[in-house]
């Protein structure tokens, strides 16, 4: 079975632009979470979705938004990009949420110039 897939793998943007990152969960998983990982730090929780409903939101500005589709895939949108948004964005899927093991994708490496 396929694992969690994320696209694109790498992305270069300039300040002020907007970006959309995509995630397809493991088949049968209904929950998707998004994390931001800056080099040398642990993953920082951004959003969790379950059955298309937002279940949790981390301490990120409103420039960050996400949604989950009926097929349980998800998108993370970031508007008005800042240099500090440069990071690895990880998507994780699970059966039902944070109380279950999280299965991570390989991430999208976002660089802001």
């Amino acid at each position: 079975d396929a694992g969690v897939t994320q696209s694109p793998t790498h992305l270069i943007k300039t300040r002020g632009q907007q970006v959309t990152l995509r995630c397809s969960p493991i088949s049968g998983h209904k929950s998707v979470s998004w994390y931001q990982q800056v080099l040398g730090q642990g993953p920082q929780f951004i959003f969790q979705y379950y059955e298309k409903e937002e279940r949790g939101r981390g301490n990120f500005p409103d420039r960050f938004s996400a949604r989950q589709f009926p097929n349980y895939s998800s998108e993370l949108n970031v508007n008005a990009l800042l240099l500090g948004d440069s990071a690895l964005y990880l998507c994780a899927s699970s059966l039902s949420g944070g109380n279950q093991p999280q299965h991570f994708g390989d991430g999208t490496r976002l660089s802001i110039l």
Partner: protein
Amino acid sequence: GQQVMQIPQYQHVQEGEDFTTYCNSSTTLSNIQWYKQRPGGHPVFLIQLVKSGEVKKQKRLTFQFGEAKKNSSLHITATQTTDVGTYFCAGLGNTDKLIFGTGTRLQVFP
């Protein structure tokens, strides 16, 4: 908000030596999970602990959840070069937010 700290930040050991990383939460946790991230890779789930005082073993790895459910530890016996990576604990409080710790980076010298 909930914070999860780990110590040490870095640990360099000789192959065959033991290694322990400690995880402390600012709030009581409903469960704690442990992940390993190899350089250039993504976090990989190792184990989940739910009960107060719970101890679980996976071959050379021993995981413990504190009695107060605010701390946890991971102990590796007789490290091998394949153990290299960063070990993260991740705690779930009374919300559905899984908060990752600061991580302990393990380097093993042959």
